[in-house]
């Protein structure tokens, strides 16, 4: 696999959040989904930086809605995962699974995972 096609952990989390949110994936919901499910504090800037990077790689796509008065006149920027993004996610998962094969963790490890 060429360098750069492997997804980092946060990238995987963001793509997974997009897939979970389906058609309601935009900055705020992605951030809240990550905080809720992954249970870690996330800055919106970090989410957008990752989304932009993924979009540059062609793994996700975004589009703007019309300006929304309830959002101070800002449009929403929705995201969706491209087929290439799903493939990359699958590849990353396969790599991780291959790495996990035959690995046994002790009690402490089981408890924290």
């Amino acid at each position, binding site marked *: 696999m060429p360098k750069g096609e492997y997804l980092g952990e946060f990238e995987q989390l963001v793509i997974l959040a997009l897939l979970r949110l389906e058609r309601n994936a*935009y*900055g*705020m919901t992605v*951030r*809240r989904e990550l905080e809720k499910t992954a249970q870690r504090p996330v*800055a*919106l*800037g*970090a989410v*957008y*930086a990752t989304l*932009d990077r993924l979009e540059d790689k062609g793994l996700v*796509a*975004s*589009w*703007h809605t*019309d300006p*929304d008065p*309830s*959002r*101070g*006149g*800002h*449009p*929403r*920027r*929705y995201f*969706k995962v491209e087929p290439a993004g799903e493939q990359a996610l699958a590849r990353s998962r396969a790599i991780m699974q291959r790495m996990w094969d035959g690995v046994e963790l002790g009690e402490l490890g089981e408890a924290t995972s």
Partner: protein
Amino acid sequence: MLGDLHEEYVRYAVAERGSARARLWYWKQVLAVLSHYRSPQRMLLPWVREGVDRNLTGFAHALVAVAGGLRQSCGSLWRDRAFAGGAVLTLAAGIGCSAIAFTVVRGVLLGPLPYDRPERLVEVGGHLPGVMGRDVAASAPEYRDYLRRARSIDGLAATLSLGASVTDSGRAVPIQAVLATPNLFALLGVSPALGRDFESGDLRGTVGNVAIISYAAWLEFFSADPRALGRTLRVDQDLITVVGVMGRDFKHPGAPDERPVHLWMPMGVAEGNLLDGRGARLLTLLGRLRDGVSLDQSQAEFRGIARELERSHPDYYPRGSGWDAVVIPLQRKIVGAARGTLLLFGGAASLVLLLACANVANALLSRGDQALRSEQRAPRAVALLLAGEGLVLAAVGAVLALPLAWLGTGLLTHAAAAEVPQLQSVHFDDSAVWYVFGASLLALLACGIAPATRLLIAAPIRPPRRGSATAWLSGNRVRDVLAAAPLASALVLCIAAGLMVRSFQRLAAVDPGFDGDRVLTLQARLPVPNDPRTGRFFEVGQRVAFFDRALEETRALPNVVDAGVISHLPMRDRNGWTFRIVGQECEVRDGLPTLEFRVASPSYFDVMHIGLVRGRHLAPSDDRRSPYVVTVNQALVTQYFSNRDPIGQRLALGGPGNRQAEIVGVVENVRDSALDADPRPAAYASYRQHVGVDMTFVLRTETRPEAVAAAAADALRRVAADVPVFAAASMQEIVARTVAQRRLLTWLLSLLAGLAVLLAGAGVHSTTVAALRQDRPAETILSAPRRAAPISPLAAAGRYGLRLAALGIGIGLLGAVGVAELLARLWSEISQLDPVVFGGSAALFLAIAIVGALLGRAGSHRHGGADLAGPLTPP
């Protein structure tokens, strides 16, 4: 992203955290962007947001947005280094050129003269077109009349500039002296740096035997010795006591840089002294406008005085002479004809700046369009990106323009110091730096803000419906006009330069009437003491003996074929005299008859290859013992003898009571003032019958004239050590000086036109690349007539080039007609609608547009062309 923050703040943050902590959270999120988010300019718009503390967040947002936006713009430009490099160089060239022009135009036309309140200083001159021409000097009686009657001025000084020589070192050093009424320095508001100003007791007779010397003369003759005051200089055989030294920066008003004034002596203009005589127009008058008086009011008053003088002295101001007094601001008088040259240069350089801005704006607009359509970026983000790119390009362009302008100003002031007065004192200073700053702001406005605004206004989030107003605005008209504008301005410059070059070619083909090839000229000036009768060249015989020996010595020099001498060299000196044909009634209707009066040796005509038409040349036998004779030129015969035979007729020269001369021959015409001016009627007298003080030797040489100059000067000094010999120059150089300003402007315009052509070609190229890169089929981008079968991209590019060319050439030709009229006003022989220049330039630009477009098509193909197409809306 702002929308997301806003939404979360309103919907959750306040409820979950409470108002104060929510605000803190919001603030933290904003700052976190600095370290996380790489394109935060997306959050900048709009500034108004409800529910959020504007004061708290506004500044942070702006900071984040600007810093991030600039970083993003720099990155984007870095990725497209070829474009960025071209754009920066374009802007640097445009800003640099206009900064050079600004510095020079401001320094020369607006730079303050080194006097007290220089804007109130005026020169009072006169027009006497029917007798002597326009811009004539004043006489001592006129000076006294003005002084008595004029109320609009607060002081009037008279000056008389003349050459002299200092002979203390045993060798005659030529200097430039000014005789001035003692109030000169007080009027200018300056005083000597050392010693004192003139006092009333300094003046005895016409010229006092004291002098204030220039800083340069102090260095040269006294080695900057402070004890120079009270010491003497031998000037034209008189012992003159130095009473003052002017400061280093003082310059006599209007003295050319290459001929600075070395000393000032007090001059009296009382009735009956040597300079008196209403017809003796020798004086330059400098005045200071009284406080509260405008130039127009002063002009009106002097015009009134001129009318009074006309009534009281009809002999001197005859009807038909067109006599008038004129008041001209000193600055304008000093700059003179160079004003037109400088303004044209300034205009041309401004066109280049506009052209550069239009080019870069156009390219940025195309980038914006592409980002919008092909990469599905939000219009606001793209607009900010464009504005950021414009800012970066303008800033880098300005930084590069600074050394360019500094270098260019230095080169220009060095190269053109002789052609443009005051140019030597022009320097690249603070104001030039400010100008560069201002010009780069203009560039930013044109290149960044304008395309960004246009995108924001016109760019829709969804593709526009065909035929809607948005579609029109977001269409290609702005881009086309931006691409055609450089073509038009470049065409204007090209035609202006072409007209100048053509006029030069015509001038080069003009026969001046003499053969100036391999002719050396050298000036010699016989010393005239304050009391001329005590001079050793006062007697005519003494002067003739000097010139006879001098001609003998110079003829004997190796490589010298022949030598002659003349009082007023054609193309350099003028000497208009009135005359009358004896026995013929003179009608003063269109002014008095005038001719150019020259004193020459018979050999002068051989040296200059001026042929005889009829009768005989002046002969060595025409001397003081024989009758006074002259030869005249064909122009005089044509104008005043209606082609009758003039031989044997007599001319009364220089007004009533003067000597009468018999015409013995007719010689060929010589263009005496400029190559583009018709020869004036002229008469030549022999140096043995009418000797001048200032004479110019002309030597025909076998080698380069300059190679003989030193030997010739030595030979003349051997004849008389106290006669200064100076201003050695070849005749060709003297002819070239008459067209120096025109040559300068031709060079400048040609350089700017060359630059403009390059920029315009590059503009067409990049526009076509952009047009073909867009995600629509070529035929709609290029607005070709809609038809069923699509046309090939090559044909479309060609067609696009043609359309741009038609637009640009159309606008450019209109502009060029105006510029041609301006040029023709400065130089009458410029042909306003020269078909070769207009046709040739239009054809050149047609070719540039088409080649640029076709190359652009190749460029777009290389970059992937229309393959970048993609859907604008998500599935």
